[in-house]
């Protein structure tokens, strides 16, 4: 399966990579358990910085589209096809909306919610 990265496109390169991997999984070109190239190999083939490919792989792994198995390499996740359909941003928005609605019902004002949100994020250990 061939992927193309347009370096002149306004879409970030790691996003192009993520989109194409997800499209391949959705189309059934990449199947569960298929081996993916190493970060170094793909970065060299695409003449990209390896950090760009590493970022794309990290986000794909977060979305459970791929999984890394140590020295054995990176594979397509067994439930990749289902997970590709999952929209993390939408899910986050929905969860937050539910929480905000509950707080409003309890009489909390928007500025209090905002301050509490900033405070809650500050208390959490920083995300990777």
């Amino acid at each position: 399966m061939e992927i193309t990265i347009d370096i002149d496109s306004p879409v970030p390169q790691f996003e192009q990579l993520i989109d194409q991997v997800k499209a391949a999984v959705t189309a059934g070109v990449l199947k569960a358990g298929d081996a993916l190239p190493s970060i170094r190999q793909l970065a060299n083939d695409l003449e990209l910085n390896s950090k760009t490919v590493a970022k794309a792989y990290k986000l794909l792994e977060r979305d459970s589209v791929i999984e890394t198995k140590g020295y054995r390499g990176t594979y397509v996740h067994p439930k990749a096809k289902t997970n590709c359909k999952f929209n993390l941003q939408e899910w986050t928005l929905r969860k937050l909306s539910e929480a905000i609605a509950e707080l409003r019902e309890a009489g909390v004002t928007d500025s209090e919610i905002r301050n509490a949100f900033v405070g809650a994020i500050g208390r959490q250990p920083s995300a990777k």
Partner: protein
Amino acid sequence: MSETYAFLAMFAIQIVTGSVLCPALFIRRIRADAASFPDERFAELFPGVDKNISTERFVTRFRVQNTGLAVLGLLLLGYLFIDMRSPDRNAGQMPVVLVSVYLVAQLIPLFLIGRNGARYNRMLKSSLADGKRKAVLQRRGLFDFVSPFTVSLAALSYFLLFALVIYIRQHPFPGYGGFTNVGIITLLYAVSAFVVYGQIYGGKKGNPLATHADRLHAIGAVVKTLVYTCIGGSLFVSLDLMLGLLRLGKWGPFAVDAFIVVSAIVSYPSILPRRRPKGDGLGSGGPLPPPGTRDLPA
């Protein structure tokens, strides 16, 4: 005296393989590459230049260089024939040095081709800069290019050489190098491993017009040549040590030349143009992972 004739015969084979057969294969490769190059692209890059004429000119120049080297080799063969036949003459390491220097001379036309090719690819790359970069989402591994058996054989030959060196240390002969032999072979293995790793996982695509299959063919040829050279190197050093142990040191020059010829023949697949395949020859296989443990919440 038979070792002298064997050496001279092997040197004659070296001349034929290095300056006749190898250039003939290279010319086939050059013609195949030129034929597959799009005419309109050539016209863009070199306006007013005829592709066929420039290819033939290049081929003729390459052929002249190699014919000159073949003539030089025959003169050297004649000199060695006269010099080594005299019974009171102890040539020592002189034939080995001459053969090695001649081998370096035989490699000069190929080096020039490589240099020109790299320059040409750079020019082609800059002319093709359209901002699009392509790659095939397929993992490459060592065993996609050489069989596990061949790699095991390379490892086994190294350890057998090590064992032989330890054995000969108990029965040393004059001129025995000891662990220096192992050191040289270790260096050969290390450099080969480094190059193989770079070829498989790193390295930029040289020719921007090369397809994925072309690239796999090129990587495969280099990897195979290096693995076979490692096996050949271990065998050659072992053979050289055995000749010393058996007081057959006079066969040393023949062994060196035989190694050079065998190495040249082994590297022929890397010169040959790629046959148009039905597929890439690589599978996307690999072990199936166990079922995932993490599901995103709905």
